């Protein structure tokens, strides 16, 4: 029966998550992160794990609830509302599904229970300093096979939490036109990091340098030389998750903005009474609702894999990245002077929106995916090379 909404159980779970995060003072974790104090972020990570938020899509035999991407939605929306720093999405919507589907029994036993218990943070390392690109062609870092090992020597950039993740899933070149994914675990090897200065100071964005580290073959995730198609699967669920987090952020923005418009008075009236303000907030609400719908569908599609899953995720990605920036910008405007300061949260949402805009690929890349999947521009090389899963997906 057609029921395009969260279930009662989802909503109950979401209510308890919200209650917990409100008690943690919402964006306090993000604000402290800016000052270098990660303790509140760590506390929330543990708290979320205790509420079951890390175990949702982990199979039951590894300590999880055995549920799917759709069941992540309540958590994704709530962590988006508070601009949670760190790698929640990378861990539950990239590492978990890939290790579950492609991991060896050893990898599953080693990592899945730890993730479920909130004891493992995962991140990914794709882009490199020469090109700053998330495309396959840009990957030059090699993993050289030597006997039973691979030697990794080089640098990745834009690695979120590279300096305190427990493991990094690294994409490295292992043949001329082929990439392999490696789980690089800090229990086995060391790496050095350089923290980059980014506008969004609520996320740790790092350059990660591997100095001739030795990776055992057991660190390979999935098949050697087949890493890119595996990466694309992971990217699909990660993009859908990130879009859902952004929708949560947009939800918080619209509420904050409407609340301000009802309480801030000028000329003897709440400013929300004036149509210019009222209508602008309505426009924000409209973009929020549209984003929510297209992103719910994308997450449902990741779980159910209908024929249009590739387009579903690409369109959700493009729509939301754009809408988040727009809505965050209008929010500042509606708050007037105080919106321009660091005293309130408006600027944090805008900066997060910009960070996410080109993460894992630019807007144009998502549009190229749609164009290719729909069969338009058949004669154009750039589009035809754009990365879309080679399957019977449309």
């Amino acid at each position: 029966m057609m029921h395009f909404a969260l279930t009662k159980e989802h909503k109950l779970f979401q209510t308890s998550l919200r209650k917990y995060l409100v008690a943690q003072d919402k964006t306090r974790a993000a604000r402290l992160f800016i000052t270098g104090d990660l303790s509140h972020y760590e506390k929330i990570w543990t708290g979320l794990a205790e509420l079951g938020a890390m175990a949702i899509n982990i199979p039951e035999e590894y300590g999880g609830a055995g549920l799917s991407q759709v069941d992540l939605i309540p958590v994704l929306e709530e962590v988006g509302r508070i601009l949670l720093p760190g790698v929640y999405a990378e861990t539950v919507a990239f590492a978990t599904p890939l290790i579950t589907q492609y991991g060896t029994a050893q990898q599953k036993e080693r990592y899945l229970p730890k993730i479920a218990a909130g004891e493992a943070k995962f991140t990914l390392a794709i882009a490199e300093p020469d090109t700053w690109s998330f495309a396959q062609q840009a990957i030059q870092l090699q993993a050289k096979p030597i006997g039973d090992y691979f030697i990794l020597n080089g640098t990745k950039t834009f690695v979120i939490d590279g300096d305190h993740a427990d493991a990094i899933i690294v994409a490295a070149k292992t043949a001329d036109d082929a990439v392999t994914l490696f789980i690089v675990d800090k229990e086995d090897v060391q790496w050095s990091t350089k923290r980059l200065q980014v506008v969004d100071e609520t996320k740790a964005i790092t350059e990660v340098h591997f100095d001739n580290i030795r990776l055992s073959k057991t660190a390979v995730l999935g098949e050697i030389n087949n890493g890119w198609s595996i990466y694309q699967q992971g990217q699909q669920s990660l993009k859908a998750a990130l879009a859902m987090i952004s929708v949560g952020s947009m939800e918080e923005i619209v509420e904050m903005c409407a609340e301000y418009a009802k309480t801030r008075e000028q000329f003897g009236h709440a400013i929300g009474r004036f149509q210019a303000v009222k209508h602008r907030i309505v426009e924000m609400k409209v973009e929020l609702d549209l984003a929510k719908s297209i992103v719910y569908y994308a997450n449902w599609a990741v779980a159910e894999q209908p024929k249009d899953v590739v387009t579903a995720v690409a369109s959700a990605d493009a729509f939301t990245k754009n809408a988040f920036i727009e809505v965050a910008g209008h929010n500042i405007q509606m708050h007037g002077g105080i919106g321009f300061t660091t005293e309130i949260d408006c600027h944090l949402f805008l900066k997060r929106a910009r960070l996410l805009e080109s993460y894992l690929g630019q807007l144009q890349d998502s549009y190229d995916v749609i164009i290719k999947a729909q069969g338009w521009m058949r004669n154009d090389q750039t589009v035809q090379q754009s990365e879309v899963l080679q399957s019977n997906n449309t």
Partner: protein
Amino acid sequence: MNLTYTQEDELFRLEIRSWLEANLPEGWIEGRRNLPENDRQRKDFLKAWQRKLMEGGWAGIHWPKQYGGRGASLIQEVIYQEELARVKAPPVLNFMGINMVGPTLIQMGTSEQKEKYIDKILSGEEIWCQGFSEPNAGSDLAGLQTKAVERDGKWYITGQKVWTTYAHMADKCFILARTSSAGKRHEGITAFLIDMHQPGVEVRPIYQMNDDHDFNEIFLQDAVAEAADVVGGVGMGWQVSMALLSHERVGVAGTIFHLENIFENLVQDMQLKAANRTMAIDNPHHALKLAQIYTRLRAASLNYYRNLTKTIDQGYPGPEGSIDKLVSSELSKELTNFAVSMQGIQGVLWKGDENTSVDWQHQYLQSFGSTIAGGTTEILKNVIGERILGLPKDLK
């Protein structure tokens, strides 16, 4: 979260789909979809289609079975809209009667009114129009001034109505008139059922920028309404009209499906060749615009279904329908605007000289009406702001 239809609903879809394939005029599905230009012939054509729908059991499907309907569920009504859009079926001439007047009379009409009017609504024997807006009462409907005075047991109505769809083809009118000027403006309004073929009623077509004249002005000079044809009671007109409008359950389903439909036509038309010119579909600027429209249309469609779920869950449509109306009407402007633009200079041709599978120029012009009729964009933004976001009402 479930986005599939039940088997029962899929069978329903097959049923309406095959009936349409068997009963649409010859050549319609293949593309020969011109309605007669002449008013008389157009009316006959549409009335005949209306009758066919009724005979096939496909008119007023949401009406209770005892009144000739199927008692269709909301999902089935949506599927019905989808299938009609899919074949670009001819418009339902008596949509006012079937979607608004009929259900209102079923809900609150007297038994005399039900007996007199209901059957002829479904068959299309009597076509209905809606007399609400006036030249000085559009968005501000409560300001209407058409007067109704009682004399010797009958009502005499004098005034002017505007934007009355199909008035030139209608037999009856559901009309709002002012019966009292005491108290608040909307308290002195009464709803009447009147005959359009009487001396006191004159219809004049309004010539629209899209070359249609479906809208009309109605001039009333002592037009007669029987006492038995007051709906809901004297002075209850505002509440009755709210109830009438609330019977529109499927909202903008038709618009959304139509947009999805013509989007396919747009892709098709972008593959028309021209000497020394890349096909529009291979032009990167055009392809990008197409992808952006596609994305927004997907979002609008999915949002419609998400709101539909809410309507089904709570049993009545909520104010979110205003968001769907706002989005779909603005999107129709964006889509048709682009469709005209991508044709290059051929985008100025129409009335058969255009070289496309859909009359884009006509649809583009029509889109300017869609953001005004049935709630302007500006009014909708106020409704959304006040009813959904709880923002304060305008300064008065």
